[in-house]
């Protein structure tokens, strides 16, 4: 106003600034509305890792597991595969290979029982 800006332009600028601030607040990590979304994304991101750790933790004692348990682990490996294929290229290379090694070992133990 002091620089000769008409009052209606001031009002428009204030409204735009308020809208921008509200927008920034909504997407900032500290915003109450954003937190659940980010936590959800993070949980989804880490969910596959938790599942991977659970599934591939039995490679050392795979030979002590029952056929049913081994079949279940193979199935869980197959379910995990698409999630790992959605990772960035670097992580996909590493985790895909690891998942395959893990799955192959369980299948190997199963095959050894059938054919061995």
């Amino acid at each position, binding site marked *: 106003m002091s620089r000769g800006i008409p009052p209606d332009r001031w009002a428009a600028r204030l409204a735009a600034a308020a809208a921008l601030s509200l927008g920034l607040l909504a997407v900032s990590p500290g915003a109450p509305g954003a937190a659940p979304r980010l936590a959800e994304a993070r949980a989804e991101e880490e969910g596959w890792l938790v599942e991977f750790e659970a599934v591939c933790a039995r490679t050392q004692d795979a030979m002590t597991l029952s056929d049913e348990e081994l079949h279940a682990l193979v199935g869980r490996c197959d379910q995990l595969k698409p999630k790992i294929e959605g990772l960035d290229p670097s992580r996909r290379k*590493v985790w895909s290979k690891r998942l395959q090694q893990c799955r192959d070992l369980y299948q190997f133990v199963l095959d050894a029982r059938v054919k061995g």
Partner: protein
Amino acid sequence: MIRLVALAAMFLALPVRGDEPGTRKRRTPPQEFGRVVNQVKKSKMGPVVFDHWLHRAKYTCRVCHVDVGFAMKAGGTDIRAADNASGMYCGACHNERAKADGGARIFAACKIPAPADAGACGRCHGVPGGEPRHQYDFASFTKDLPRGRFGNGVDWEIAEQRRLVKPVDFVEGLSVKRAPMPVQKDFALGPKLAGMPEIIFSHAKHTVWSGCEGCHPEIFTGVKRGTTKFSMVEIFDGKFCGACHVNVAFPLGDCQRCHSKPVQ
């Protein structure tokens, strides 16, 4: 015994792929045994010269070849600088956050294309016509370790048993906590040649270093014991036991370490 010595001499005299016919194989110097040279494709940097002796003293085979995901064959991993930068492969430990056994932080892998003599790059990448500036000296590093006859000249098995080396089996962010392994019994494998001592295979010794998925089923595919017929030619060619015992673990010339059961 005479047969064993004769066989050992025969195997040591076998030509190796890539050698000129009629020339004797150059015996790899101890400090170069287990060396892997990875050529760099999309940069002017020199090749990465990786020595197994240093890393195997500090980490189990499984940490690198299962948890970190390095292929068992040289050049089979297709590592890129971006992979290291995102904490994969070399970057799993070489990230300035991970600590070595002495508590010091492990230097970070170089993240962008840079001259081989710049900063940390030259510690792994050789300069054209030269070798990297490795931090450790082989002779000093191995001087107090038990002697072996071949390979690095170190008996790594005894070194591990005496806790002179303490290979770590877990890398933060990549390893998973596994259930304890049940004790596996040793078993004997009959040799093809009459008069040769039987092979005593110890699952326990191998799983300390490699776990289960390091070998099965990628290297040992057979599911029924006794159905896969190994031959020394195939093994020398890098198959089966040769996947490790040609270039990294004690080499195949050390016959008695496998053919260890006295002939009845």
